[in-house]
């Protein structure tokens, strides 16, 4: 199949989702700044969301989408909500970490090392 010549379909969305997901993972790995890691997580969740929406989209899948009904979109909604919640908790942890260590560098969080 050829992505460039085909009309936009689920595959296209999956590719975008995969790219977002991968960048998110790389971001989580690469960043030493706790906030950067957090942003990586956001990207990962966002990539997953793209997939959910694509699978549940009636535009992209036509009648096939009705197999999933609203599940795709509802799942995406829940992911968004949980991502927001996760961001809040992660930020609180970062803040606490910053209070204790005066830095947001995650490599310095080695208190549990023997």
């Amino acid at each position, binding site marked *: 199949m050829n992505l460039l010549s085909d009309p936009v379909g689920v595959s296209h969305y999956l590719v975008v989702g995969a790219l977002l997901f991968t960048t998110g993972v790389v971001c989580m790995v690469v960043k030493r700044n706790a906030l950067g890691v957090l942003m990586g997580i956001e990207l990962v969740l966002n990539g997953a969301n793209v997939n959910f929406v694509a699978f549940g989209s*009636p535009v992209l899948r*036509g*009648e*096939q*989408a*009705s*197999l*999933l009904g609203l599940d795709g979109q509802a799942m995406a909604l829940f992911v968004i909500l949980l991502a927001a919640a996760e961001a809040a908790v992660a930020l609180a942890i970062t803040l606490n970490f910053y209070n204790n260590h005066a830095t947001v560098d995650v490599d310095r969080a080695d208190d549990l090392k023997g």
Partner: protein
Amino acid sequence: MAEYLIQTVGLPEWLTWSLMAVLSAVLILNLMAGGALVFIWAERKVSARIQDRLGPTRTGGSFGWLQSLADGIKLLAKEDLMPEGADGMLFRVAPYVSFCASFAAFIGLPFAFDMVGLRLNVGVFYVVAVLGLEVFGVILAGYASASKWSLFGAMREAAQVVSYEVPLGMCIVVPVMLAGTMDLVTIGEKQAGWFTNWYLFHDPFTFVVFWVYVTCAVASVNRAPFDLAEAESELVAGFHTEYSGLRWSFFFMAEYSSMFLVSGLAAVLFLGGWNGPVPLATLAGLSEGTGETTGALVRLLGLANLLGKATLGVLIMMWIRWTLPRLRIDQVMTTCLKYCTPIAAAMFAGAMVWLWVFPGGVLNLDDGSRRPGEIREGWLEGPGGRAPAAATAPASIPAEEAVAEVAG
């Protein structure tokens, strides 16, 4: 018009559609820019009259009509300064972020029946969400300016706008609940008829909620007495302390257009939108669907109605600004969290109960709206009212296969 171009002039279809898109974008943009010019002039005149002055009197005749234009030219000619130590990219991009956010929000706002950039079935939600992005540019500007005053302004704006979105959302939910849809066109259309059909007068709760909305709207667009982000007597000029020239004017335009936007939103949600207090067109037996020319005229009347209401809202904001002192940041937050949010929540519950007790409403003296079937067929239910073809078609893929797909 698109059809006219395609059929009569014989333009290729893609060009026509592109032209149409550009045209509507230009219309909205001009509405914003032109509106900002008019409102800046009006602000000067209104403030002058309030303060026992004359205001601009020379540029462009005795009323200073062209004053804002002259100001604009001056701003264009002004040097765009950037402080040393500023984050150059973010500093440059911040005004445009603000401006784009308020521009994009206009896409969802209907100006008259059926006259909307993009009719979304989540229209009101979209408008509020995009409007909330305006704060983003402000925060970027505050951070990127490398000035402490800017940073203070940005932090205040962030705290304020994020907080005020909660009661603002709750206020907006009330008309959405009454209309049963988030589609702004439908919400406006449901208030057709005499002014008693307006959601403002629907029940006592909506009446209160309207004033909470006004408070929150003023706060969320940073107008006095909630203009803490720029608070010139405390923070010099707040987030735009370091801005000058054209970039500054973009912030300015964004401020005025979001003022206009929240006023327009208030008009659609509470004040009947494009429906005048007296249903003139209906009384004359006309409606948007009556015919090409008459329909256009009726729409123009609706447009005038909505613009008038929105302008009135903007003028009231100016009146407030030139009358009241500024609140302190903790008082602004108290107003939001201790007063606006609980009141909005209580009024929401009240309106819900009212709707349950009087499902038909009590003040609907006369339903002077258009007779169904003229044009509203399929419109009142929102853009998805017409059942999509795909939904009616029988399923072609067996369920097992679909599950397998997802799992795979």
